[in-house]
Structure formats: C-alpha cells, structure tokens
C-alpha cells in the first residue's frame, strides 16, 4: 500500500506531543546553562532525565508506528503550522512521524542515553563537567529536531544547531590549540556543504512554494510537487529535481564526511571520547545519511522502473569512493581514535552507496547497526584510553586483554560487527553490509562499486585486526600499568554489545522486517530464504573476504608487539605507499595549498585594502579635518580676533586723540566756549536778519 499522509487533529496522539522529544533536552540544556554554580548532580540529572524522557516518548511513538504498520497502514503523520507570513507567501514548519522517523528517534535517544551514562564516569575528573552535559543535552535536542522535522527549513535550523554543538564539543578543551583549530575546521568544512544545502533549499522553495515534506498532498516530497520539479530543466541535462538533489547531497556530504569534505572528521577526535562516540560516530554524521533518506522521493524522482537517477548515481559513486579511500588511510594510522574516525568515514561511504543503490531501507539499516557498534567501539576506545591514563597511541599499548577483560570482550564484539563477520550469524554489521553488497551486485549502472565495496570490506577487516592486535594482544609497551574501567563505563559497553549482536536479526533475508516496516509492506519470517543461492553466494563471498583480511593482518601483526620506534611491518615493505597513507593521502595539505592559501591571499588583500586604502581615506579625512580646524583657528585668531583687536586699538587711539581735548587747562575750555558762543551768535543774528 502506498504511504498515506495523515494530518493529525487529536490533541492526545503521540504525534501532537512529538515536539516534546527534542524540546525537553534543549530546555534541560538551557536550565543547565543558567545554573549559577557548577552543580554536577543537577546537570547530570537534567541531562540523563531529559534524554530518558525523550527515549520513553520515542518508544511510544515507535510502538504506535508498529501498531499502524501491523494494521496495514503506512502513514506519515504530520503536524504543520505557519511560522512566517510575508504577503501571500507562507513559511511553514512542522514535524512528522513515520516509520523512518520512529526508528531514528529510538536509535538516537537510546544511544545518547547510554553515552550520557558512560560520560558520568569518563568526564568525572573534568572541571567543566556541567558545561559538557549542557552541550550534550543541546546536541541531543537538536539531533532529535533534525529527525522529526517535516520542513526542510526546520531541518536546516536544527542541522545548524547540531553543527554548533559539534563545534562546542570538539573544542571542549579549548585551551589546547589543536582542539580549537579542529573545532574551527569542522565548522568551516561543514559550512561549505551547508552553502550548497541552502542553495538547494531556496531553489526548492522557489519552485514548489513549500518546504514541507508532507502536507496532505501539497508537500514538496509528494507527487504533485515532484512532477513540477521534473518538468523544469536545469543545467547540464539535469532537471530541477536532479539539481536540487545534488545540492542537498553536497550538504549531506559535508556533514557525513564524504570525500572531499571529510577532512574535519579525523581532527574532530580532539574532543572527548563520548563526544566522538555520540556525535562523530552514531548520530551527527548519520544526519547526512538521514537527510538523503528524507528527501529520497526527490532524489528518486524521474527514475524509471529498475533504473536510477543522476543524483543517486552521484551519491553511489561518492559513497563507494569514500569507503575505499578512508579504509586505505585507516590502515596506516597509529592513533586509536583516528583509526576509528577513518573507519567511520568509510562506513558512511557504505551507507551512502547503500542509499544510492538499494534505497532507503538498505542505507538506514546499515546506519542503525553502525550507530550501535561504532558507539561501542568508541566507548571501548575511551575505556582503553582511560585505563592507559590518557595514552592514545596504539604502539604504546598491548596485552590489555588480560588487564581489561570486559573492555576486550565488548570491543571484540564491536570489531567483528564492524568487519561484518559472518560466523555465527549474530553480528549485525554482517547483515547490514551484506544488504548493501546485495544492492551493489544488482545495480543497473555498473558493477565497479560492488568491487570497491568488497575491497573496502577487506581493508576494514585488515585495519581493525591490526588495531585489536596492537591494543589487546602482545605485551604491554606503555609506561604505567593499565587498569579496568569502572562499572558506569563498562555497563553501557555491555548493553551496546548486546544490541550490536542482535540488531542484525531484524534485517536478515529470512525476516526482512526492517525494510518492510519502512516501506509499508508486510514481512513474513521464512528461514529458508537464507539458503537461496544468490544470498548464499553473497554471504559466502563476504565471509571469505573478511576472514582473508583478518588472517592477513594477524599474520603481520599477530602477537608480536614491535617497539613504537620501530617502523611498521608494511612500512618496511612499501615505504612510499605507507608514507602516503600515513599522511592521509595529503588531502589536508592540498587544501592548505589551494583553498586556504587562496583565502589567505584574499585576507591579506582585504587587510591591505583596509589598512592602506580605507585607512588612508580615513587618515586623509582626518588630515583634512585637522587642516580645516587649523585654518579655522588661524582665521579666528588672526582675522576675527585680529580685526576686532585692531578695531579696539583704533578706538583706543581715537579715544586717546579725543581725550586730548581735555587738556585740563582752563583757558582751552574758555577758548572753546568763546568760539562756540561766537558761532551761535553769528548764526542767530544771521537768521534773524530780515
């Protein structure tokens, strides 16, 4: 049955209360931020309590969705509202509850809760404890916002918030210059992707008039809008749908660390390990994959039956290339977290390739399983680092399987899940990766991605075995002895290990519940499907590849524990190749020389302009004003004052001259008197003459 849209009006349904799921952790973050003194207990209670509440609500939503699915419906339940009204245009926001969102909600809240609990032990000795939980709660709220967003605009807003919290958390130990630089790098690199995302968003809004995904038929992911987009041609033979899809994929590529915007992820390991686990393994980097899944109707628009679109092809190629590229680099890394970081990039490539070739269910299944075992691996690495007193170089570890048994057990489960070890059919990574390989095998465009992904699986097994051999086997090469981590850290490890093993069971060929749930079909349990020839061949191939990788690596790195100063075995064999891989294929250096140098030059130009040209203008103006002021002063004191003074002097002189009349001598006065009388008399007599 095709998916239906339901606009929910009942106030008590879970969909109406869905907004609480992201809101409560955000509010908890706000309250924690406003706390006057660092109150550790309060901060932790707020963080864990809010995420638990969100988990509860998410479970309710999930159960609701399962019930609807069992009844035979497949719905997108939406709640939309108008946010801004500008003239005749409305900008609407809203949230949606559908199987995809429900699955993601449960995964995010559950993994977040486990990591929060783990962090109470890991960050115990840190002085910015409350800040940590404030930022983590904010992150959880923002990520959940991304998940339930029904509007591309709301998704973008939460997307940016997620980026912000990632910046805050990578640079958590901001006193370290490397951490601050890594945070900046992460923010700027994802920003490059976000610019394209924004362009795509604006274009979509311009074309369809709405940014809502589902809106009772008028949403942008619904057939009417998609038909309109397909009719619009854009550049390079693409339609508007294809162009917008590629722009949005550019944004997802930034966030999910696809080549060439992957450079920030390894540096993001500067943040605390719980941060790496939650943000850079399980959730935030998965947001890109989730975004593609969300706009899948757009990406798939125009595909003929059995065929694919340009956008999805691009996604596939980028994903496959990233998978191999990152796996190659991971082989030559020596930092325990960096190996896992490149592994994450590689697995994200797998997810993207799965989305491109197999559809939403394939990619999302790998996303969910990856979240669990990658979080497990990171938390295990954190436990190892904590136990080795903050040592992160694998060449200085060794023999920890006896010192840290619990960590070793859970870490091995995670490692095998990541490799996709087929035996004994328990490891979730096996099923999810096989789903992707299956889709690659049946891809209509080319078979090359399949071979790339198989190579990637080989390399994954190789480097993970290398890492485990270095860390847990051999003898201890560090300075101080190691110790096991406290229970608050190992219990989440155990829980995650359990799920890493069992989660695969919802996606096996025998019981394709996951894809059925997401696509609204019914699923039946049929054990015999496993032994269908095509499945069997594929499973066998992948198992053989993985075992080959493990055996090769064990042969080279096995129980030997070479001293840290000695070069690696592969380095001795192929030093040039090793050097290239060790230096991450010089991508960072390339960026340094091109993009950063370019911007540096522009910055220098701008600075020169500012200082010389504008500064010169300002100086000139100031000089002109000063000159004017001087002129005024000159005029004032010389012309005005001078003329006034001169006038006064003249007056004084005149007065002096006039005062000479007052001689003080009587006879002068008499003379004047006589003269005046004479003149007067003369006048009078003259005038009276007749």
């Amino acid at each position: 049955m095709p998916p239906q849209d339901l606009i929910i009006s009942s106030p008590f349904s879970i969909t109406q209360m869905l907004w609480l799921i992201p809101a409560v952790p955000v509010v908890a973050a706000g309250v924690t931020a406003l706390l006057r003194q660092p109150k550790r207990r309060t901060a932790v209670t707020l963080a864990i309590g809010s995420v638990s509440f969100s988990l509860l609500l998410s479970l309710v939503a999930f159960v609701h969705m399962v019930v609807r699915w069992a009844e035979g419906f497949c719905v997108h339940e939406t709640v939309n509202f108008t946010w801004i009204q500008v003239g005749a245009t409305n900008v609407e926001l809203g949230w949606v509850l559908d199987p995809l969102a429900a699955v993601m909600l449960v995964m995010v809240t559950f993994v977040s809760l486990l990591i929060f609990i783990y962090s109470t032990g890991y960050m115990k000795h840190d002085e910015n404890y409350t800040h940590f939980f404030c930022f983590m709660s904010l992150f959880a709220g923002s990520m959940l916002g991304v998940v339930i967003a029904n509007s591309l605009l709301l998704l973008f807003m939460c997307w940016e918030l997620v980026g912000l919290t990632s910046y805050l958390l990578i640079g958590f130990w901001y006193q370290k210059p490397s951490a601050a630089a890594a945070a900046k790098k992460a923010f700027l690199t994802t920003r490059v992707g976000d610019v394209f995302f924004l362009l795509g968003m604006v274009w979509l809004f311009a074309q369809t008039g709405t940014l809502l995904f589902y809106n009772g038929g008028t949403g942008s992911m619904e057939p009417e809008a998609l038909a309109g987009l397909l009719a619009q041609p854009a550049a390079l033979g693409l339609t508007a749908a294809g162009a917008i899809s590629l722009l949005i994929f550019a944004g997802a590529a930034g966030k999910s660390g696809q080549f060439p915007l992957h450079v920030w992820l390894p540096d993001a390991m500067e943040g605390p390990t719980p941060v790496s686990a939650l943000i850079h393994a399980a959730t935030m980097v998965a947001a890109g994959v989730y975004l593609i899944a969300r706009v899948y109707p757009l990406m798939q628009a125009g595909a003929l039956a059995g065929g694919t679109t340009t956008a999805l092809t691009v996604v596939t190629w980028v994903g496959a290339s990233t998978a191999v590229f990152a796996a190659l680099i991971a082989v030559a890394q020596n930092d325990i977290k960096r190996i896992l970081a490149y592994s994450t990039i590689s697995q994200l490539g797998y997810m993207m390739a799965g989305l491109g070739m197999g559809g939403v269910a394939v990619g999302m299944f790998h996303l969910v399983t990856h979240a669990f075992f990658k979080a497990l691996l990171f938390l295990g690495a954190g436990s190892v680092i904590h136990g080795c007193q903050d040592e992160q170089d694998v060449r200085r570890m060794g023999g920890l399987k006896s010192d840290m048994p619990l960590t070793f057990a859970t870490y091995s489960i995670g490692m095998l899940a990541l490799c996709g070890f087929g035996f004994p059919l328990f490891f979730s990574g096996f099923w999810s990766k096989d789903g992707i390989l299956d889709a690659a095998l049946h891809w209509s465009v080319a078979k090359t991605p399949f071979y790339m992904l198989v190579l990637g699986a080989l390399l994954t097994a190789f480097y993970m075995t290398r890492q485990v051999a270095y860390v847990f086997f051999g003898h201890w090469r560090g300075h101080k002895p190691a110790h096991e981590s406290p229970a608050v850290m190992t219990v989440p490890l155990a829980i995650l290990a359990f799920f890493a093993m069992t989660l695969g069971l919802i996606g096996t060929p025998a019981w394709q519940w996951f894809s059925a749930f997401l696509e609204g079909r019914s699923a039946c349990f049929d054990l015999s499907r496993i032994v269908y020839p095509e499945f069997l061949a594929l499973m066998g191939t992948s198992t053989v590849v993985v075992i080959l990788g493990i055996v090769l690596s064990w042969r080279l790195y096995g129980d030997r524990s070479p001293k840290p100063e000695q070069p690696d075995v592969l380095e001795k064999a192929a030093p040039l190749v090793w050097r290239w891989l060790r230096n991450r294929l010089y991508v960072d250096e390339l960026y340094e020389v091109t993009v950063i140098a370019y911007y540096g030059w522009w910055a220098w130009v701008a600075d020169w302009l500012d200082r010389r040209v504008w500064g010169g203008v300002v100086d000139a103006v100031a000089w002109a004003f000063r000159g004017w002021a001087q002129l005024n002063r000159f005029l004032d004191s010389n012309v005005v004052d001078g003329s006034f003074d001169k006038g006064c002097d003249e007056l004084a002189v005149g007065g002096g001259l006039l005062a000479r009349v007052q001689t003080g001598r009587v006879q002068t006065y008499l003379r004047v008197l006589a003269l005046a009388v004479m003149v007067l008399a003369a006048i009078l007599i003259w005038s009276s003459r007749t």
Partner: protein
Amino acid sequence: MTPLASYLLVAALLFSIGLAGALTRRSAILVLIGIELMLNAANLNLIAFWRYGPHPEALTGMMFAIFSIAVAAAEAAVGLGLVIHIHRYAHTTNLDAMNRMKG
C-alpha cells in the same frame, strides 16, 4: 552812526579786549582782570540801552547794571580768594601748570 551804536561799539571793543586778555594771558589773576573788563563792557551795554531805550523811566537798565556791579564785586572776591588758595598749594598762578583735570 547813532550814539547808541557808538556806545555799543565801544562796549564790544572793551569786551573783546577783555576776552583776549582772558584767553591769552598766563596768569590766573589776569584772566580775572579780563573777566572784570568783560563784565564792565556788558554794564556799559546795559546803560546805553537804558538811556536810548523806549522807557528809561522804568529804570530797568540802571537796576540791572547796579545789580551786575554788586554781583561782579562778589564774584571778584571769591575768585581772587580761590586764586590765593591755589597759589598756596601750587606756588604759582600759572594756568598752564594747573592741568590736573587733564583727560
């Protein structure tokens, strides 16, 4: 020329002489002498007009002249007293030296 005119001319001449003396002599006493001459000339004028005027029986001119003589006497007394007083302090009757009222 009528008799009156000739008397008037004589009076005018005396007046001018007295004025000249008052305006040109350096000593204060001589200024006073000049002033006395002027007053006398005026008296002569008065008497002349009384004699040749329309109503000499009214005695106006004569009375005027008599009073003028009396006043002139008083004025001479006070004036000369002043000159003596000033002489006591300035030790001179030189009018040119008495310029303390100079502006």
